[in-house]
């Protein structure tokens, strides 16, 4: 069945995304990795939707796309805010608080 290929693609994208979130130190790169995770979810949902003949999955994917856009809007605004205050968007330099 073709759906397996889509699921594999989704799993690979998800793993790349998780790797990026854990390893990358640039805030914008982390945001892009999170987008990869969400797109892995979309591919899964659409593949399952076609496989099961159930439209719910595609509707779910539309919601994910819309909400991901809102999330990235807020995320980029925050990255801009820390850039203005610190002239850097390296996440490992964000360590004002410890313990």
């Amino acid at each position, binding site marked *: 069945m073709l759906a397996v290929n889509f699921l594999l693609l989704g799993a690979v994208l998800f793993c790349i995304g998780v790797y990026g979130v854990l390893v990358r130190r640039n805030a914008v790169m982390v945001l892009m990795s999170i987008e990869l995770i969400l797109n892995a979810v979309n591919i899964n949902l659409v593949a399952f939707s076609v*496989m099961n003949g159930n439209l719910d999955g595609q509707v779910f994917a539309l919601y994910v796309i819309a909400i991901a856009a809102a999330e990235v809007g807020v995320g980029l605004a925050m990255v801009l805010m820390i850039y203005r205050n610190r002239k850097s968007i390296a996440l490992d330099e964000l360590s*004002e*608080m410890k313990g």
Partner: protein
Amino acid sequence: MFAFLVAQASDWITPVIDWHAVAPELVLVAGINIVLLIDLNISDAKKWVLATLTGFVMLGALLPVVTLAVIGDDSRSLFDGRYVIDEYALILKAFFLLVAYVVILMSQTELEEGGYYQGEFYVLMLCSVLGMVMMSSARDLISIFVALELLSIPAYMLAAWRKRDVKSNEAGVKYYLLGVFASGVMLYGMSFLFGATNSTLLTDIGAALTDGDLNGLEVVGVVFVICGFAFKISAVPFHTWAPDTYEGAPTPVTAFLSVASKAAGFVALVSIIFLAFPNASDVYEPLIWTLAALTMTVGNVLALRQTNIVRMLAYSSVSQGGFILMPLAFAGNSNAGGSALNAVVVYLLVYGFMNLGAFAIVIAVSRKTRSGEISSFGGLFGYAPGLAVAMTVFFASLAGIPPLGGWFAKFNAFRAVLQAETNPAYVLAAIAAVNTVVSAAYYMRVLRSVWMDDAPDGDTSPVVTPAPIVAALGITVIGTLVVGVYPNAITRFAELKDLTGAIVP
């Protein structure tokens, strides 16, 4: 493909909408627009109007919740059971609205004196509360996801509300990145659940999953969904954002996050476990058992060495989360299932009152001392006896000393766990008992400082507490005391039968 779409479209029936049932949400939506429009058209000197108005919107939304509760004990179901208003949903809606009202009382003076943006703050707070109110009724993966994002996205912005302060920026960014990552993980799990069960409705998923016969997709789905929510409720090892976010965010926002946002995560987890995973207890029971044991232990150990009161309360709220999570580990046990639901809901309600109260005290005292150190509370009883007594009530309640609310909540949680009568249950109860004693150590350390020590800089001028904070303290003290003395006031609202469709195998 097109013929397939047309075939589905011909079945379309306009859904019947029960307007009374969605009235609380509609009041909030109307309130968001009204506050936003008024904010655009008034001068800065009159912004205090917005706080009052937002408070009235919360109380206005509470009104239909009360009428719904009084009218009937039957549950109202909308959109094919995807949005259900039952007693479980009503008590939690009332809780979220009341918590938000208290937080607005607490934030009013802070916002005015701190020179923050005010109108936008209240609008975002209302949006977040709308998400929480929706979450208590959501019975479908899609509506749970939409409600979760609706409550989280405004909360990310609220955490970073001090735009020029690097600590607040850091708080917002950490909360945002981990929150979004967690929802990604949760969604990935949800996509597997949808694929394996061919439905997004929680009760359908529950019917399709069968214990002992779960395939790989289903196991991954269950684990990822629970891990996604574990971030939201700051369960160890997914708690790393919590202390930094709580310390950096403005204190009223911290109170809101540690009570309302955490409670919303628990509400979603409870709905999912009781409706969608009742037959997947082989997978979620060990997972939640481990999360609960780690959360209460690690939270307590780290709270012991804190010197900043907000950071201490942050770790204390992590460890309280472990106690709330504890009964859920036995949700699938036929003896303990019903009591587990009751214990979680009751603990959430009590925890809301006592933790909000503790933060209200911190706000009131730090207006004078301008410090977040625990030592700055020394001698509080000498110059502010009222605040010292209220603080004693909240901290003793958090430690679980009778006859306060926190004691009853802990008792209820222990009872639910022991009813399971299995070895893991006894072990978890023993771990929790040790943790209760350890947690008393750091709560009592603060109280000893309040009652025994002298004021650190000899400044014993009285604390001026603004009227809204006094009101917030009044509500939370009464809540904490009443539940401890007369627990029936809330326990009867959280029975298993109140959650429509919940089954315990």
